[in-house]
């Protein structure tokens, strides 16, 4: 196996006296799509935020391309250019047009040529079917459109890895689809991705590897077919069961 692009070693994260993540280790290889599932509050989101430096880690290490990025030696602004992130609430900047939302970071953070950036932005917008929306303000767009623009905004920095934190959780079902399609296309294009999601069928389709988190640690991991068909742990089985609406089982549970 080649050297891993992102390596997490014994990661630990405390908030005050409370331990959120404990002893989390995983490897992500170039072009790999890793999906993280687990119940709410299990530390999935915090885990992603530790990777790109939004949260300082309490213990353990995060290595990008063999270089430690979690010890404070690399500034957050530097890390975030290599590891892009998209959030649940598609936080476009409300006072800027779509084009300015996309172009602000490459121009101001990466000091790229504004003309080149604008060209590239238009190209990316056209590719996701949003040509003509350059001068629209976020308030004029649907949730799905905003989320896809948020993805473009992260992608234009040319990150090596993309993190997705429940990006479809606050969208209408129809818009979920357009966002998932875009992620699927990105995955097929060879992007290295870490995805936190509750969309199980999507997880199964897109993932090369699935990690199941619970109570701040990895409970089990494996290929999607194995995990979704035959979870090894009882906890994993119970979690997967909660996504299936089964009348008989519901009755059993209620009675």
């Amino acid at each position, binding site marked *: 196996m080649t050297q891993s692009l992102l390596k997490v070693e014994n990661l630990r994260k405390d908030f005050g006296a409370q331990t959120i993540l404990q002893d989390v280790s995983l490897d992500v290889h170039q072009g790999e799509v890793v999906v993280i599932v687990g119940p709410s509050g299990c530390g999935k989101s915090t885990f992603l935020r530790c990777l790109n430096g*939004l949260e300082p880690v309490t213990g353990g290490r995060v290595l990008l391309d063999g270089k430690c990025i979690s010890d404070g030696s690399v500034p*957050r*602004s530097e890390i975030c250019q290599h590891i892009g992130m998209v959030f649940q609430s598609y*936080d476009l900047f409300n*006072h800027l047009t779509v084009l300015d939302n996309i172009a602000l970071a490459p121009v*101001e953070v990466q000091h790229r040529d504004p003309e080149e950036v604008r060209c590239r932005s238009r190209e990316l917008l056209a590719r996701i079917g949003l040509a003509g929306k350059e001068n629209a*303000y976020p308030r004029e767009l649907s949730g799905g459109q905003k989320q896809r623009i948020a993805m473009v905004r*992260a992608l234009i920095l040319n990150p090596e890895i993309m993190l997705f934190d429940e990006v479809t959780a606050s969208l209408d079902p129809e818009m979920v689809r357009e966002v998932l399609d875009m992620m699927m296309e990105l995955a097929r294009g060879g992007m290295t991705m870490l995805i936190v999601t509750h969309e199980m069928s999507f997880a199964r389709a897109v993932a090369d590897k699935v990690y199941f988190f619970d109570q701040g640690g990895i409970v089990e991991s494996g290929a999607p077919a194995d995990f979704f068909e035959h979870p090894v742990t009882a906890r994993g089985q119970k979690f997967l069961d909660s996504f299936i609406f089964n009348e008989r089982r519901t009755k059993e549970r209620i009675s």
Partner: protein
Amino acid sequence: MESLGLRVLWEGQNFARLLGGLWVVVQLSVLSILGSLVLGLGVGLIMTLPYKITRFLTRVYLEFIRIMPQLVLLFLAYFGLTRWTGINLPGFTAAVIVFILWGGAEMGDLVRSIVISIPKNQYESGAALGFTRWQLYRFIILPQAVRSLIPPAMNLASRIIKTTSLVVLIGVVEMLKVGQQIIEANRYTAPTAALWIYGTIFFLYFFSCWPLSLAAAYLEKRWQVK
């Protein structure tokens, strides 16, 4: 009788003197408002820092200024400072300092409340795009804050303009004082002059504050974002 009162306004240098008084008001107001904006922006941002010591110091500053009537502050800066330290500030300078300290505190609190009301997500998504803390404020937080700041800041500015009428009590001759002098000088020949002089002063104040309201309305409309 009325015409006699109105005549006083045009007698000799009277109207020009009133305008001279207005010029003092304008200078005092412009300096105080600009100073307050700059100081308030700084103080407001410092208030949002997560350090106990900066929070405590800005809090003490804000509460001190808030508790004191502006008149007391003017007396402290003009009479008090001289008595305690021997520094004798001209009335105009003392007034500008007091109004900037007062306006800066009030403005700071406005800036603080608006900056913390901007959703945390805006900071986070900016941080995740690699913006440094300073860039976040410059490109994302402040431009959004300024838009919400316009109405309360304009309100504060017109309060500052109106409060400049207190400076007469530390010996600065501004429009209101000039008006009183004119009225006093004509007390026996034109007893109704007060109505006309104060009426004129009313309009002069109105026309100094009105453009601010117009500008605020224009900006609010232009920046209507959410």
